[in-house]
Protein backbone atom coordinates (compact mmCIF):
# COMPACT_ATOMS: atom_id res chain seq x y z
CA UNK A 1 0.00 0.00 0.00
CA UNK A 2 1.42 3.41 -0.98
CA UNK A 3 1.61 6.03 1.74
CA UNK A 4 -0.78 8.28 -0.18
CA UNK A 5 -4.38 7.61 0.80
CA UNK A 6 -6.05 10.39 -1.14
CA UNK A 7 -4.68 12.47 -3.94
CA UNK A 8 -6.75 15.37 -5.26
CA UNK A 9 -5.58 17.29 -8.32
CA UNK A 10 -7.02 20.49 -9.79
CA UNK A 11 -10.45 20.11 -8.19
CA UNK A 12 -13.02 22.69 -9.20
CA UNK A 13 -16.68 22.82 -8.26
CA UNK A 14 -19.26 25.43 -8.96
CA UNK A 15 -22.98 25.60 -8.38
CA UNK A 16 -25.58 27.40 -10.50
CA UNK A 17 -25.18 29.09 -13.85
CA UNK A 18 -24.62 32.59 -15.17
CA UNK A 19 -24.59 35.40 -12.64
CA UNK A 20 -25.87 33.03 -9.94
CA UNK A 21 -22.83 30.78 -10.35
CA UNK A 22 -20.85 30.19 -7.18
CA UNK A 23 -17.37 28.80 -7.48
CA UNK A 24 -17.22 26.74 -4.26
CA UNK A 25 -13.84 25.01 -4.73
CA UNK A 26 -11.10 26.48 -6.87
CA UNK A 27 -8.23 24.52 -8.33
CA UNK A 28 -7.63 22.49 -5.19
CA UNK A 29 -4.82 19.94 -5.01
CA UNK A 30 -3.50 18.07 -2.01
CA UNK A 31 -2.61 14.66 -0.66
CA UNK A 32 -3.67 12.88 2.51
CA UNK A 33 -1.52 10.06 3.82
CA UNK A 34 -2.10 6.81 5.59
CA UNK A 35 -1.41 7.02 9.28
CA UNK A 36 -2.21 10.71 9.54
CA UNK A 37 -5.07 12.68 10.98
CA UNK A 38 -5.70 15.59 8.65
CA UNK A 39 -7.90 18.46 9.70
CA UNK A 40 -9.63 20.72 7.23
CA UNK A 41 -10.42 24.10 8.72
CA UNK A 42 -11.74 27.38 7.45
CA UNK A 43 -14.63 29.80 7.83
CA UNK A 44 -18.16 28.93 6.81
CA UNK A 45 -18.53 28.99 3.04
CA UNK A 46 -14.86 28.29 2.46
CA UNK A 47 -15.64 25.08 0.55
CA UNK A 48 -14.65 22.50 3.19
CA UNK A 49 -17.80 20.41 2.91
CA UNK A 50 -17.80 20.60 -0.89
CA UNK A 51 -14.18 19.45 -0.96
CA UNK A 52 -14.93 16.66 1.51
CA UNK A 53 -17.85 15.48 -0.63
CA UNK A 54 -15.71 15.41 -3.76
CA UNK A 55 -12.84 13.44 -2.23
CA UNK A 56 -15.23 10.94 -0.65
CA UNK A 57 -17.05 10.22 -3.91
CA UNK A 58 -20.45 11.72 -3.25
CA UNK A 59 -20.20 14.98 -5.23
CA UNK A 60 -18.80 14.97 -8.75
CA UNK A 61 -16.31 17.81 -9.41
CA UNK A 62 -16.64 19.97 -12.50
CA UNK A 63 -13.00 19.37 -13.21
CA UNK A 64 -10.01 17.67 -11.61
CA UNK A 65 -9.47 14.19 -10.32
CA UNK A 66 -9.48 12.29 -7.04
CA UNK A 67 -7.52 9.12 -6.42
CA UNK A 68 -8.28 7.12 -3.32
CA UNK A 69 -5.42 4.64 -2.99
CA UNK A 70 -5.02 3.58 -6.63
CA UNK A 71 -8.56 4.24 -7.84
CA UNK A 72 -9.56 7.29 -9.84
CA UNK A 73 -12.96 7.43 -8.16
CA UNK A 74 -14.67 9.76 -10.63
CA UNK A 75 -13.86 7.52 -13.60
CA UNK A 76 -15.93 4.58 -12.36
CA UNK A 77 -19.67 3.98 -12.59
CA UNK A 78 -22.08 5.19 -9.91
CA UNK A 79 -22.79 1.67 -8.66
CA UNK A 80 -19.09 0.82 -8.46
CA UNK A 81 -18.46 4.12 -6.72
CA UNK A 82 -21.15 3.26 -4.15
CA UNK A 83 -19.46 -0.10 -3.57
CA UNK A 84 -16.10 1.65 -3.33
CA UNK A 85 -17.41 4.01 -0.64
CA UNK A 86 -18.98 1.10 1.18
CA UNK A 87 -15.70 -0.80 1.43
CA UNK A 88 -13.09 1.95 1.52
CA UNK A 89 -14.56 5.05 3.17
CA UNK A 90 -16.20 5.48 6.55
CA UNK A 91 -18.37 8.50 7.31
CA UNK A 92 -19.24 10.17 10.59
CA UNK A 93 -21.88 12.77 9.90
CA UNK A 94 -22.29 15.94 11.90
CA UNK A 95 -25.81 14.96 12.99
CA UNK A 96 -24.82 11.27 13.25
CA UNK A 97 -27.88 10.20 11.19
CA UNK A 98 -28.57 7.12 13.27
CA UNK A 99 -31.87 5.34 12.76
CA UNK A 100 -33.89 5.89 15.96
CA UNK A 101 -36.07 2.81 15.26
CA UNK A 102 -33.09 0.43 15.16
CA UNK A 103 -30.95 -0.71 18.04
CA UNK A 104 -27.46 0.64 18.44
CA UNK A 105 -25.95 -2.60 17.16
CA UNK A 106 -28.26 -2.65 14.12
CA UNK A 107 -27.22 0.92 13.31
CA UNK A 108 -23.57 -0.02 13.51
CA UNK A 109 -24.11 -3.16 11.44
CA UNK A 110 -25.63 -1.31 8.47
CA UNK A 111 -22.41 -1.10 6.37
CA UNK A 112 -21.84 -4.83 6.90
CA UNK A 113 -25.43 -5.61 5.95
CA UNK A 114 -25.00 -3.55 2.80
CA UNK A 115 -21.89 -5.65 2.15
CA UNK A 116 -24.23 -8.70 2.19
CA UNK A 117 -22.78 -9.99 5.45
CA UNK A 118 -25.17 -12.45 7.22
CA UNK A 119 -27.38 -10.69 9.78
CA UNK A 120 -26.10 -12.50 12.89
CA UNK A 121 -22.48 -12.11 11.88
CA UNK A 122 -22.99 -8.40 11.17
CA UNK A 123 -24.56 -7.87 14.60
CA UNK A 124 -21.75 -9.78 16.31
CA UNK A 125 -19.13 -7.63 14.60
CA UNK A 126 -21.14 -4.49 15.38
CA UNK A 127 -21.29 -5.43 19.07
CA UNK A 128 -17.54 -5.97 19.01
CA UNK A 129 -16.94 -2.53 17.52
CA UNK A 130 -19.29 -0.98 20.06
CA UNK A 131 -16.98 -2.42 22.69
CA UNK A 132 -14.03 -0.81 20.90
CA UNK A 133 -15.68 2.62 21.15
CA UNK A 134 -16.50 2.01 24.81
CA UNK A 135 -20.17 1.14 24.54
CA UNK A 136 -20.16 -2.39 25.82
CA UNK A 137 -23.62 -3.46 26.92
CA UNK A 138 -25.41 -0.80 24.87
CA UNK A 139 -25.93 -2.90 21.76
CA UNK A 140 -29.64 -3.44 22.28
CA UNK A 141 -30.54 0.12 23.22
CA UNK A 142 -32.03 2.53 20.69
CA UNK A 143 -29.75 5.51 19.97
CA UNK A 144 -32.20 7.94 21.55
CA UNK A 145 -31.47 6.36 24.94
CA UNK A 146 -27.81 7.36 24.62
CA UNK A 147 -26.12 10.70 25.37
CA UNK A 148 -24.77 12.91 22.58
CA UNK A 149 -21.23 11.68 23.15
CA UNK A 150 -22.37 8.08 23.12
CA UNK A 151 -24.30 8.63 19.90
CA UNK A 152 -21.15 10.09 18.38
CA UNK A 153 -19.31 6.92 19.38
CA UNK A 154 -22.04 4.82 17.77
CA UNK A 155 -21.57 6.83 14.58
CA UNK A 156 -17.82 6.20 14.78
CA UNK A 157 -18.40 2.49 15.33
CA UNK A 158 -20.65 2.44 12.27
CA UNK A 159 -17.95 4.22 10.27
CA UNK A 160 -15.19 1.78 11.21
CA UNK A 161 -17.11 -1.49 11.26
CA UNK A 162 -16.40 -2.16 7.60
CA UNK A 163 -12.69 -1.52 8.25
CA UNK A 164 -12.39 1.36 5.75
CA UNK A 165 -9.01 2.79 4.80
CA UNK A 166 -10.27 6.35 4.93
CA UNK A 167 -12.40 7.79 7.70
CA UNK A 168 -14.15 11.13 7.22
CA UNK A 169 -15.60 13.01 10.19
CA UNK A 170 -17.70 16.10 9.58
CA UNK A 171 -17.66 18.52 12.52
CA UNK A 172 -17.45 15.67 15.06
CA UNK A 173 -17.50 17.99 18.07
CA UNK A 174 -20.16 20.43 16.89
CA UNK A 175 -22.98 18.94 18.97
CA UNK A 176 -20.87 18.06 22.02
CA UNK A 177 -19.65 19.96 25.02
CA UNK A 178 -15.94 20.82 25.16
CA UNK A 179 -14.72 17.91 27.28
CA UNK A 180 -16.81 15.30 25.48
CA UNK A 181 -15.65 16.62 22.11
CA UNK A 182 -12.02 16.46 23.13
CA UNK A 183 -12.46 12.96 24.54
CA UNK A 184 -14.07 11.74 21.33
CA UNK A 185 -11.29 13.09 19.10
CA UNK A 186 -8.64 11.86 21.48
CA UNK A 187 -10.26 8.45 21.38
CA UNK A 188 -10.28 8.48 17.58
CA UNK A 189 -6.63 9.52 17.56
CA UNK A 190 -5.58 6.79 20.00
CA UNK A 191 -7.80 3.89 18.98
CA UNK A 192 -9.05 4.36 15.44
CA UNK A 193 -6.09 5.91 13.67
CA UNK A 194 -3.58 3.39 12.41
CA UNK A 195 -0.78 3.12 9.87
CA UNK A 196 -3.27 1.62 7.41
CA UNK A 197 -5.85 4.33 7.86
CA UNK A 198 -6.19 7.99 7.00
CA UNK A 199 -8.56 10.18 8.99
CA UNK A 200 -9.86 13.50 7.69
CA UNK A 201 -11.76 15.78 10.02
CA UNK A 202 -13.60 18.93 9.03
CA UNK A 203 -13.90 21.18 12.06
CA UNK A 204 -14.25 24.68 13.38
CA UNK A 205 -13.25 23.63 16.86
CA UNK A 206 -9.78 24.95 17.69
CA UNK A 207 -9.81 23.08 21.02
CA UNK A 208 -9.13 19.83 19.23
CA UNK A 209 -6.36 21.08 16.90
CA UNK A 210 -3.74 19.51 19.18
CA UNK A 211 -4.70 16.04 17.93
CA UNK A 212 -4.06 16.82 14.25
CA UNK A 213 -0.99 15.70 12.32
CA UNK A 214 -1.67 18.39 9.75
CA UNK A 215 -4.19 21.16 9.46
CA UNK A 216 -5.28 22.14 5.99
CA UNK A 217 -6.66 25.65 5.80
CA UNK A 218 -9.22 26.75 3.26
CA UNK A 219 -10.66 30.11 2.44
CA UNK A 220 -12.95 31.18 -0.36
CA UNK A 221 -12.72 27.78 -2.03
CA UNK A 222 -8.93 27.75 -2.09
CA UNK A 223 -6.32 25.90 -0.13
CA UNK A 224 -4.40 28.58 1.73
CA UNK A 225 -1.87 26.43 3.51
CA UNK A 226 -1.01 23.76 6.03
CA UNK A 227 -0.07 23.99 9.66
CA UNK A 228 1.92 21.38 11.57
CA UNK A 229 3.62 20.04 8.45
CA UNK A 230 5.01 21.00 5.13
CA UNK A 231 2.82 22.67 2.54
CA UNK A 232 1.78 19.98 0.09
CA UNK A 233 -0.30 22.07 -2.20
CA UNK A 234 0.90 21.75 -5.77
Amino acid at each position, binding site marked *: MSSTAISAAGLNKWFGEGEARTHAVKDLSFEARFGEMLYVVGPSGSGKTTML*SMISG*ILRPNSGSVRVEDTDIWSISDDRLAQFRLHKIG*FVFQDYHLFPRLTTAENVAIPLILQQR*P*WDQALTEAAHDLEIVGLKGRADLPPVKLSGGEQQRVAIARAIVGRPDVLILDEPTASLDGDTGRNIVQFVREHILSEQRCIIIVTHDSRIYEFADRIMKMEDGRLTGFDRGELDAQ
Partner: protein
Amino acid sequence: MRQLQMPGIYRIAFKLLVNDRTKFAALLVGITFAVFLMIEMTSLFAGILSRASATVINIGASIWVMDPSVQTVANTIPVPDYVLDEVRSIPGVKYAVPLYSGAALLKLHDGTYQAANVIGLDDSSLFGRPQLISGHIENIFAENAFIAVDDSEFYKLKGANIGAQFELNDHRGVIVGTARVISSGLFGVPTLYTTYYRAMQYIPNSRFTISYVLVEPKKPADVAAIKRQVAAAGYLALTKDEFIRKISAFYKYQTGIGTNMLIMTLISFIIGLSISGQTFYTFILENIEKFGALKAIGAKGSELVSMILFQATFVSLTGYGLGVGLCSLVIWLARLYLPDYAAMVTYTNLGLAFIMVVVIASISSYFGVRKVLTIEPFDIFRG
Protein backbone atom coordinates in the same frame (compact mmCIF):
# COMPACT_ATOMS: atom_id res chain seq x y z
CA MET B 1 -29.15 -27.41 6.84
CA ARG B 2 -28.79 -23.75 5.96
CA GLN B 3 -31.58 -21.65 7.38
CA LEU B 4 -33.46 -19.47 4.91
CA GLN B 5 -33.07 -15.88 6.05
CA MET B 6 -34.54 -12.61 4.92
CA PRO B 7 -31.82 -10.47 3.28
CA GLY B 8 -30.37 -7.96 5.75
CA ILE B 9 -31.59 -4.82 4.00
CA TYR B 10 -35.17 -6.14 4.11
CA ARG B 11 -34.80 -6.85 7.82
CA ILE B 12 -33.63 -3.28 8.27
CA ALA B 13 -36.58 -2.05 6.19
CA PHE B 14 -38.97 -4.25 8.18
CA LYS B 15 -37.68 -2.96 11.52
CA LEU B 16 -37.78 0.66 10.37
CA LEU B 17 -41.41 0.13 9.43
CA VAL B 18 -42.82 -1.86 12.34
CA ASN B 19 -40.79 -0.16 15.06
CA ASP B 20 -42.42 3.15 14.13
CA ARG B 21 -45.57 1.87 15.75
CA THR B 22 -47.74 4.93 15.31
CA LYS B 23 -47.17 5.18 11.58
CA PHE B 24 -47.28 1.45 11.09
CA ALA B 25 -50.63 1.35 12.88
CA ALA B 26 -51.91 4.30 10.83
CA LEU B 27 -50.82 2.59 7.60
CA LEU B 28 -52.45 -0.68 8.60
CA VAL B 29 -55.66 1.02 9.70
CA GLY B 30 -55.82 2.97 6.43
CA ILE B 31 -55.34 -0.04 4.19
CA THR B 32 -57.40 -2.40 6.35
CA PHE B 33 -60.29 0.05 6.43
CA ALA B 34 -60.08 0.65 2.68
CA VAL B 35 -59.97 -3.09 1.92
CA PHE B 36 -62.83 -3.72 4.33
CA LEU B 37 -64.98 -1.06 2.65
CA MET B 38 -64.09 -2.16 -0.87
CA ILE B 39 -64.83 -5.83 -0.19
CA GLU B 40 -67.93 -5.04 1.85
CA MET B 41 -69.36 -2.84 -0.90
CA THR B 42 -68.60 -5.25 -3.72
CA SER B 43 -69.77 -8.23 -1.62
CA LEU B 44 -73.07 -6.54 -0.93
CA PHE B 45 -73.45 -5.91 -4.62
CA ALA B 46 -72.51 -9.51 -5.45
CA GLY B 47 -75.04 -10.67 -2.87
CA ILE B 48 -77.75 -8.48 -4.36
CA LEU B 49 -76.97 -9.70 -7.87
CA SER B 50 -76.99 -13.31 -6.74
CA ARG B 51 -80.35 -12.90 -4.99
CA ALA B 52 -81.78 -11.08 -7.96
CA SER B 53 -81.24 -14.30 -9.93
CA ALA B 54 -82.47 -16.57 -7.13
CA THR B 55 -85.34 -18.10 -9.12
CA VAL B 56 -83.05 -18.87 -12.07
CA ILE B 57 -80.48 -20.46 -9.76
CA ASN B 58 -83.03 -22.43 -7.74
CA ILE B 59 -85.03 -23.77 -10.70
CA GLY B 60 -81.80 -24.63 -12.50
CA ALA B 61 -83.17 -25.07 -16.04
CA SER B 62 -80.57 -25.10 -18.84
CA ILE B 63 -82.49 -22.79 -21.18
CA TRP B 64 -85.12 -20.17 -20.40
CA VAL B 65 -87.49 -19.02 -23.13
CA MET B 66 -89.13 -15.64 -22.54
CA ASP B 67 -90.46 -12.49 -24.09
CA PRO B 68 -87.54 -10.43 -25.47
CA SER B 69 -88.51 -7.49 -23.25
CA VAL B 70 -87.90 -9.36 -20.00
CA GLN B 71 -85.20 -7.61 -17.94
CA THR B 72 -85.19 -9.63 -14.74
CA VAL B 73 -86.66 -12.93 -13.66
CA ALA B 74 -89.15 -11.11 -11.42
CA ASN B 75 -90.29 -8.87 -14.27
CA THR B 76 -92.25 -11.59 -16.11
CA ILE B 77 -94.05 -11.03 -19.38
CA PRO B 78 -96.34 -14.03 -19.96
CA VAL B 79 -96.02 -15.84 -23.27
CA PRO B 80 -98.83 -17.65 -25.16
CA ASP B 81 -99.35 -21.38 -24.73
CA TYR B 82 -98.44 -22.06 -28.34
CA VAL B 83 -94.86 -20.97 -27.59
CA LEU B 84 -94.57 -24.04 -25.38
CA ASP B 85 -95.77 -26.24 -28.25
CA GLU B 86 -93.48 -24.51 -30.72
CA VAL B 87 -90.46 -24.95 -28.48
CA ARG B 88 -91.31 -28.61 -27.94
CA SER B 89 -91.30 -29.05 -31.71
CA ILE B 90 -87.76 -27.73 -32.17
CA PRO B 91 -85.29 -30.50 -33.04
CA GLY B 92 -82.72 -30.77 -30.26
CA VAL B 93 -85.17 -30.08 -27.45
CA LYS B 94 -85.21 -32.98 -25.04
CA TYR B 95 -88.17 -31.59 -23.14
CA ALA B 96 -89.83 -28.23 -22.47
CA VAL B 97 -92.12 -27.35 -19.56
CA PRO B 98 -93.99 -24.22 -18.47
CA LEU B 99 -93.13 -22.27 -15.35
CA TYR B 100 -95.30 -19.82 -13.51
CA SER B 101 -93.63 -17.12 -11.44
CA GLY B 102 -95.65 -14.36 -9.87
CA ALA B 103 -96.54 -12.36 -6.79
CA ALA B 104 -99.47 -13.11 -4.51
CA LEU B 105 -100.96 -11.64 -1.37
CA LEU B 106 -101.52 -14.13 1.43
CA LYS B 107 -103.89 -13.68 4.35
CA LEU B 108 -102.23 -15.51 7.23
CA HIS B 109 -103.94 -17.38 10.04
CA ASP B 110 -103.74 -14.34 12.33
CA GLY B 111 -105.53 -12.14 9.79
CA THR B 112 -102.46 -10.24 8.63
CA TYR B 113 -101.45 -9.98 4.99
CA GLN B 114 -98.08 -11.00 3.60
CA ALA B 115 -96.80 -10.68 0.04
CA ALA B 116 -95.25 -13.87 -1.36
CA ASN B 117 -93.57 -15.14 -4.47
CA VAL B 118 -95.39 -18.13 -5.96
CA ILE B 119 -93.65 -20.57 -8.27
CA GLY B 120 -95.90 -22.88 -10.25
CA LEU B 121 -94.12 -26.05 -11.38
CA ASP B 122 -95.11 -28.11 -14.40
CA ASP B 123 -97.80 -30.52 -13.12
CA SER B 124 -96.53 -33.57 -14.96
CA SER B 125 -92.79 -33.29 -14.27
CA LEU B 126 -92.48 -30.90 -11.29
CA PHE B 127 -89.30 -29.77 -13.02
CA GLY B 128 -87.35 -27.35 -10.80
CA ARG B 129 -88.83 -28.64 -7.54
CA PRO B 130 -86.89 -27.70 -4.42
CA GLN B 131 -85.25 -30.10 -2.00
CA LEU B 132 -87.80 -30.92 0.71
CA ILE B 133 -86.91 -30.65 4.38
CA SER B 134 -90.28 -31.92 5.58
CA GLY B 135 -93.30 -33.50 3.90
CA HIS B 136 -93.46 -35.47 0.65
CA ILE B 137 -93.29 -34.06 -2.84
CA GLU B 138 -96.34 -36.01 -4.04
CA ASN B 139 -98.42 -34.06 -1.53
CA ILE B 140 -98.05 -31.02 -3.78
CA PHE B 141 -100.89 -32.59 -5.81
CA ALA B 142 -103.15 -32.61 -2.76
CA GLU B 143 -105.98 -30.14 -2.48
CA ASN B 144 -104.82 -26.50 -1.95
CA ALA B 145 -101.25 -27.72 -1.44
CA PHE B 146 -98.24 -25.41 -1.25
CA ILE B 147 -94.64 -26.01 -0.21
CA ALA B 148 -93.00 -23.20 1.76
CA VAL B 149 -89.34 -22.39 1.26
CA ASP B 150 -87.52 -22.33 4.59
CA ASP B 151 -85.16 -19.47 3.80
CA SER B 152 -84.45 -16.17 5.53
CA GLU B 153 -88.01 -14.98 4.78
CA PHE B 154 -89.75 -18.11 6.08
CA TYR B 155 -90.52 -16.55 9.47
CA LYS B 156 -92.78 -14.02 7.75
CA LEU B 157 -95.29 -16.82 7.16
CA LYS B 158 -95.66 -17.01 10.95
CA GLY B 159 -95.30 -20.70 11.60
CA ALA B 160 -95.82 -22.25 8.19
CA ASN B 161 -95.32 -25.82 9.28
CA ILE B 162 -97.11 -28.73 7.66
CA GLY B 163 -100.83 -28.23 8.01
CA ALA B 164 -100.67 -24.45 8.43
CA GLN B 165 -103.33 -22.66 6.45
CA PHE B 166 -103.68 -19.30 4.75
CA GLU B 167 -105.89 -17.58 2.20
CA LEU B 168 -104.80 -16.65 -1.28
CA ASN B 169 -107.24 -14.66 -3.35
CA ASP B 170 -110.15 -16.20 -1.42
CA HIS B 171 -108.74 -19.69 -1.92
CA ARG B 172 -107.60 -21.79 0.95
CA GLY B 173 -103.94 -22.77 0.96
CA VAL B 174 -102.32 -25.52 3.03
CA ILE B 175 -98.64 -26.04 3.69
CA VAL B 176 -97.76 -29.66 2.85
CA GLY B 177 -94.03 -29.41 3.16
CA THR B 178 -91.05 -27.15 3.67
CA ALA B 179 -88.04 -26.97 1.39
CA ARG B 180 -84.64 -25.46 1.10
CA VAL B 181 -83.26 -23.64 -1.94
CA ILE B 182 -79.80 -22.55 -3.04
CA SER B 183 -80.46 -18.80 -2.88
CA SER B 184 -82.97 -16.60 -1.10
CA GLY B 185 -84.80 -13.96 -3.06
CA LEU B 186 -83.90 -10.29 -3.25
CA PHE B 187 -87.20 -8.69 -2.35
CA GLY B 188 -87.68 -9.89 1.21
CA VAL B 189 -90.82 -11.98 0.60
CA PRO B 190 -91.39 -15.70 1.32
CA THR B 191 -91.55 -18.17 -1.55
CA LEU B 192 -94.21 -20.84 -2.08
CA TYR B 193 -94.06 -23.67 -4.59
CA THR B 194 -97.19 -25.23 -6.04
CA THR B 195 -98.27 -26.75 -9.34
CA TYR B 196 -98.54 -24.67 -12.46
CA TYR B 197 -102.24 -25.49 -12.81
CA ARG B 198 -103.04 -24.43 -9.23
CA ALA B 199 -101.03 -21.23 -9.53
CA MET B 200 -103.09 -20.28 -12.58
CA GLN B 201 -106.32 -21.08 -10.72
CA TYR B 202 -105.49 -19.21 -7.54
CA ILE B 203 -103.72 -16.12 -8.82
CA PRO B 204 -105.40 -13.62 -11.11
CA ASN B 205 -103.70 -13.69 -14.47
CA SER B 206 -103.59 -11.93 -17.80
CA ARG B 207 -104.57 -13.61 -21.04
CA PHE B 208 -101.30 -15.50 -21.32
CA THR B 209 -100.12 -17.45 -18.32
CA ILE B 210 -96.72 -19.04 -18.97
CA SER B 211 -94.02 -16.94 -17.36
CA TYR B 212 -91.13 -18.96 -18.83
CA VAL B 213 -90.69 -22.07 -20.90
CA LEU B 214 -87.94 -24.18 -19.37
CA VAL B 215 -85.99 -26.20 -21.89
CA GLU B 216 -83.53 -29.05 -21.64
CA PRO B 217 -81.52 -29.61 -24.84
CA LYS B 218 -80.69 -33.11 -26.00
CA LYS B 219 -77.02 -32.16 -26.08
CA PRO B 220 -75.06 -28.95 -25.45
CA ALA B 221 -74.42 -28.53 -29.17
CA ASP B 222 -78.16 -28.09 -29.73
CA VAL B 223 -78.34 -24.91 -27.65
CA ALA B 224 -77.37 -22.56 -30.49
CA ALA B 225 -79.96 -24.02 -32.87
CA ILE B 226 -82.67 -23.85 -30.20
CA LYS B 227 -81.85 -20.20 -29.58
CA ARG B 228 -82.03 -19.46 -33.31
CA GLN B 229 -85.37 -21.21 -33.70
CA VAL B 230 -86.85 -19.43 -30.66
CA ALA B 231 -85.60 -16.09 -31.98
CA ALA B 232 -87.21 -16.83 -35.34
CA ALA B 233 -90.52 -17.23 -33.51
CA GLY B 234 -90.08 -13.78 -31.95
CA TYR B 235 -88.99 -14.90 -28.48
CA LEU B 236 -85.75 -15.05 -26.58
CA ALA B 237 -83.96 -18.17 -25.37
CA LEU B 238 -81.15 -17.71 -22.88
CA THR B 239 -78.98 -20.25 -21.13
CA LYS B 240 -79.04 -20.14 -17.35
CA ASP B 241 -75.73 -18.24 -17.23
CA GLU B 242 -76.82 -15.79 -19.91
CA PHE B 243 -80.04 -15.07 -18.04
CA ILE B 244 -78.12 -14.47 -14.80
CA ARG B 245 -75.77 -12.12 -16.66
CA LYS B 246 -78.72 -10.28 -18.20
CA ILE B 247 -80.28 -9.82 -14.75
CA SER B 248 -76.94 -8.64 -13.33
CA ALA B 249 -76.50 -6.20 -16.20
CA PHE B 250 -79.95 -4.78 -15.50
CA TYR B 251 -79.13 -4.09 -11.85
CA LYS B 252 -75.66 -2.83 -12.70
CA TYR B 253 -76.50 -0.49 -15.53
CA GLN B 254 -80.21 0.25 -15.42
CA THR B 255 -80.71 0.89 -11.75
CA GLY B 256 -78.80 3.22 -9.41
CA ILE B 257 -77.49 0.29 -7.39
CA GLY B 258 -74.45 -0.43 -9.56
CA THR B 259 -73.44 3.22 -9.83
CA ASN B 260 -73.84 3.80 -6.10
CA MET B 261 -71.80 0.73 -5.26
CA LEU B 262 -69.12 1.81 -7.72
CA ILE B 263 -68.99 5.28 -6.17
CA MET B 264 -68.76 3.83 -2.66
CA THR B 265 -65.98 1.49 -3.76
CA LEU B 266 -64.10 4.38 -5.36
CA ILE B 267 -64.54 6.45 -2.20
CA SER B 268 -63.13 3.55 -0.17
CA PHE B 269 -60.20 3.38 -2.56
CA ILE B 270 -59.58 7.13 -2.27
CA ILE B 271 -59.81 6.97 1.54
CA GLY B 272 -57.31 4.13 1.63
CA LEU B 273 -55.02 5.87 -0.82
CA SER B 274 -55.19 9.15 1.09
CA ILE B 275 -54.49 7.68 4.51
CA SER B 276 -51.82 5.20 3.51
CA GLY B 277 -50.26 7.38 0.82
CA GLN B 278 -49.95 10.36 3.12
CA THR B 279 -48.68 8.28 6.05
CA PHE B 280 -46.18 6.38 3.94
CA TYR B 281 -44.87 9.56 2.36
CA THR B 282 -44.50 11.16 5.82
CA PHE B 283 -42.70 8.03 6.96
CA ILE B 284 -40.26 8.37 4.04
CA LEU B 285 -39.83 12.11 4.64
CA GLU B 286 -39.00 11.55 8.29
CA ASN B 287 -36.32 9.06 7.31
CA ILE B 288 -35.12 10.86 4.20
CA GLU B 289 -31.87 12.08 5.77
CA LYS B 290 -31.18 8.59 7.01
CA PHE B 291 -31.74 7.23 3.52
CA GLY B 292 -29.35 9.94 2.28
CA ALA B 293 -26.82 8.81 4.86
CA LEU B 294 -27.24 5.22 3.65
CA LYS B 295 -26.57 6.45 0.11
CA ALA B 296 -23.41 8.20 1.30
CA ILE B 297 -22.27 5.09 3.14
CA GLY B 298 -22.61 3.07 -0.05
CA ALA B 299 -26.17 1.85 -0.51
CA LYS B 300 -27.12 1.69 -4.19
CA GLY B 301 -30.27 3.42 -5.39
CA SER B 302 -31.74 0.04 -6.31
CA GLU B 303 -31.22 -1.20 -2.75
CA LEU B 304 -33.03 1.80 -1.28
CA VAL B 305 -35.86 1.37 -3.79
CA SER B 306 -36.17 -2.31 -2.92
CA MET B 307 -36.34 -1.41 0.79
CA ILE B 308 -39.21 1.00 0.16
CA LEU B 309 -41.04 -1.44 -2.10
CA PHE B 310 -40.62 -4.14 0.52
CA GLN B 311 -42.13 -1.87 3.17
CA ALA B 312 -45.03 -0.90 0.91
CA THR B 313 -45.65 -4.52 -0.07
CA PHE B 314 -45.50 -5.77 3.50
CA VAL B 315 -47.88 -3.17 4.88
CA SER B 316 -50.25 -3.58 1.93
CA LEU B 317 -50.45 -7.36 2.15
CA THR B 318 -50.87 -7.24 5.91
CA GLY B 319 -53.59 -4.60 5.58
CA TYR B 320 -55.22 -6.64 2.82
CA GLY B 321 -55.30 -9.76 4.98
CA LEU B 322 -56.70 -7.84 7.94
CA GLY B 323 -59.28 -6.15 5.72
CA VAL B 324 -60.46 -9.46 4.25
CA GLY B 325 -60.60 -10.98 7.75
CA LEU B 326 -62.51 -8.02 9.15
CA CYS B 327 -64.98 -8.08 6.28
CA SER B 328 -65.56 -11.83 6.67
CA LEU B 329 -66.08 -11.35 10.41
CA VAL B 330 -68.58 -8.52 9.89
CA ILE B 331 -70.53 -10.51 7.27
CA TRP B 332 -70.57 -13.54 9.57
CA LEU B 333 -71.78 -11.46 12.52
CA ALA B 334 -74.35 -9.68 10.36
CA ARG B 335 -75.76 -12.99 9.15
CA LEU B 336 -76.12 -14.18 12.73
CA TYR B 337 -78.43 -11.30 13.52
CA LEU B 338 -79.78 -10.34 10.08
CA PRO B 339 -80.73 -13.43 8.06
CA ASP B 340 -81.61 -11.20 5.09
CA TYR B 341 -78.10 -9.77 4.91
CA ALA B 342 -77.18 -10.10 1.26
CA ALA B 343 -73.39 -10.12 1.07
CA MET B 344 -71.26 -12.61 -0.77
CA VAL B 345 -67.45 -12.56 -0.86
CA THR B 346 -66.37 -13.80 -4.27
CA TYR B 347 -62.96 -14.32 -5.84
CA THR B 348 -63.77 -11.36 -8.08
CA ASN B 349 -64.33 -9.13 -5.02
CA LEU B 350 -61.09 -10.30 -3.48
CA GLY B 351 -59.22 -9.85 -6.75
CA LEU B 352 -60.63 -6.37 -7.28
CA ALA B 353 -59.69 -5.30 -3.76
CA PHE B 354 -56.23 -6.81 -4.21
CA ILE B 355 -55.69 -4.87 -7.43
CA MET B 356 -56.79 -1.67 -5.69
CA VAL B 357 -54.42 -2.36 -2.78
CA VAL B 358 -51.58 -2.92 -5.25
CA VAL B 359 -52.45 0.44 -6.84
CA ILE B 360 -52.51 2.10 -3.40
CA ALA B 361 -49.13 0.55 -2.54
CA SER B 362 -47.67 1.49 -5.91
CA ILE B 363 -48.79 5.11 -5.74
CA SER B 364 -47.71 5.45 -2.09
CA SER B 365 -44.28 3.97 -2.75
CA TYR B 366 -43.84 5.86 -6.03
CA PHE B 367 -43.64 9.19 -4.23
CA GLY B 368 -41.38 7.72 -1.57
CA VAL B 369 -39.08 6.17 -4.16
CA ARG B 370 -38.93 9.41 -6.12
CA LYS B 371 -37.99 11.32 -2.98
CA VAL B 372 -35.32 8.82 -1.97
CA LEU B 373 -33.80 8.70 -5.44
CA THR B 374 -33.52 12.47 -5.61
CA ILE B 375 -31.89 12.92 -2.19
CA GLU B 376 -28.21 13.73 -2.65
CA PRO B 377 -25.76 12.48 -0.04
CA PHE B 378 -24.08 15.86 -0.43
CA ASP B 379 -27.18 17.37 1.18
CA ILE B 380 -26.50 15.23 4.23
CA PHE B 381 -23.05 16.76 4.55
CA ARG B 382 -24.38 20.24 4.01
CA GLY B 383 -26.97 19.61 6.73
